């Protein structure tokens, strides 16, 4: 590193006096500008749009709370909301399942590194591809899953044609990469568990589940936190899989808010931008509950440092 000799002009010295104060703002400016234009402003704009009726072609008309009032009686909105809750609850299975696989793989036999990467593999694949894979897997008449149920029960189950099972079928597809994600978080966490504490606990006679619960899990808390955060976000963002696998069908029973919003605002039979924005606002507020919780915990950790 080189320290350049300074020229001592009067301007220079003003800058020198203030540069510590000004530099962070200069460094922040480009990123903050982009972020403000593409994230902060659109959030505000969506709130505003949600009070209008707008087809994207003609001028907007003010409808006040009209869109929200309509949401209240919209059966499809209720279905989407219900499915979002199912997603949230079932998606959480990714956390213990990821932990289970991580514990299973946390060994030092030969070739284990390759096993770990291959188990992690589904996370790298695009959800579009995951969706196509599972559509094939569930396909009526020739899908592997259909054949399997046919062989077991005599009649095949076409998961994605069945309004009761379809959402669960999609969630299963979503869990596949999500479990892989949680697994890798826990594998890294397990790597950093203090060996002396484990040994000490072992000497005290702790083993198996007891050891996991009282000694290991407390040390894995940071990994668990991140796993929960990414899983909640993933569950509420579920758009790709629904779009690829069912398009919300059969008869709208697999809609989730993120998909329904797109459908209302931009799809072939939609183009109600204001109504779509109102759905997005509801989704945002739900997400806000979680975001506030996460950020609050992070702020606390930050202050505690």
């Amino acid at each position, binding site marked *: 590193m080189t320290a350049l000799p300074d020229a001592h002009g009067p301007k220079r010295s003003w800058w020198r006096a203030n540069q510590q104060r000004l530099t962070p703002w200069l460094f922040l400016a480009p990123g903050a500008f982009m972020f403000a234009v593409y*994230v902060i402003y659109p959030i505000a704009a*969506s709130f505003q749009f949600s009070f209008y009726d707008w087809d994207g072609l003609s001028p907007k008309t003010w409808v006040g709370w009209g869109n929200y009032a309509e949401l209240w009686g919209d059966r499809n909105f209720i279905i989407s909301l219900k499915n979002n809750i199912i997603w949230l609850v079932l998606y959480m299975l990714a956390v213990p399942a990821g932990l289970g696989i991580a514990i299973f793989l946390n060994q*030092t*036999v030969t070739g284990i590194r390759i096993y770990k990467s291959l188990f992690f593999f589904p996370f790298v694949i695009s959800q579009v*591809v995951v969706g196509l894979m599972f559509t094939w897997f569930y396909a009526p008449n020739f899908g592997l899953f259909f054949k399997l149920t046919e062989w077991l029960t005599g009649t095949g189950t076409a998961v994605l044609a069945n309004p009761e099972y379809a959402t669960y079928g999609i969630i299963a597809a979503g869990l596949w990469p999500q479990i892989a994600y949680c697994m890798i978080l826990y594998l890294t966490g*397990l790597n950093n568990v203090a060996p002396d504490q484990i040994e000490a606990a072992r000497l005290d006679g702790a083993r198996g589940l007891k050891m996991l619960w009282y000694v290991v899990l407390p040390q894995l808390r940071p990994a668990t936190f991140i796993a929960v955060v990414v899983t909640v976000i993933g569950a509420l963002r579920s758009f790709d899989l629904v779009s690829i696998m069912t398009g919300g069908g059969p008869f709208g029973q697999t809609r989730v808010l993120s998909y329904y919003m797109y459908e209302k605002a931009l799809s072939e039979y939609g183009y109600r931008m204001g109504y779509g924005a109102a759905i997005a606002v509801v989704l945002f507020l739900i*997400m806000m509950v979680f975001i506030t919780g996460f950020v609050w915990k992070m*702020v606390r950790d930050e202050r505690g440092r």
Partner: protein
Amino acid sequence: MFPRPIAQRSQAAQWSYAALLPIALILWLLPLLGIAMTSIKPASDLASGNYFGLPTHPAFENYWSVLFDFDLWRYIRNSFVVTIPTVIGAVALSCLTGFALGTYRFKGNLLIFFLFVAGNFVPFQILMVPVRDLTLRMGIYDTPQALILFHIAFQTGFCTLFMRNFIAALPRELIEAARVEGVAEWQIFWHIVLPLMKPAIAALSVLVFTFIWNDFFWATVLTTSADTRPVTAGLSSLNGQWVAAWHLVSAGSIVAALPPVAMFFLMQKHFIAGLTLGAVK
């Protein structure tokens, strides 16, 4: 170590573990294996009902067909056109913001930092209508720039979180020493901090590459034509043409998944380092 290393257990336990590993892996990757197998089946196999058996002959022409007869190569190219500038842009911007938030103490530091963090969790849908509108008004709808600009802006949230934590963990003495010597602030960034950030830059690049490559939502919202659509959206439209042609769907899926997979296997260490940041403190 938890669980107890298998080497300390009985011979039988070791053997059953060795046997269980590959079985578990095959079950885990079953959908993927099925697709891989289907992708090299000739169309005649599927027509004659050979859905699960081995292909009668490996039909690698399926790959040729999706790439060139159906122009999947164009969508792949589009994906690169969007992904590479985004990676550069997002990483560059977040080096700056991360440095600002990680080295300086000033009023509003934490507030700005958590604004970036929170923005990163926001559902895309709340941004959709305004961003689409903005893009139309800027006259870049259905161009790679539309996606690049948005992705850079949005990824800056995640990348800033990452970079800031990385920089905050660097030894402060280095920076203080340089200041005492009178080194200008931007030079501290350029000559002292940036070289130390190489591992973070590598990790972020790999991660952002994968995120952007796999993006489907924005690709459908901001692009429409075959000349600009990235491969995820392209695959979804081709899927409409390939109904009942699962050998093509499979081959197309595998081709579309390949670049991030290659990236992952080549840069595995960085990838996992990036992903698990914060999981271990």
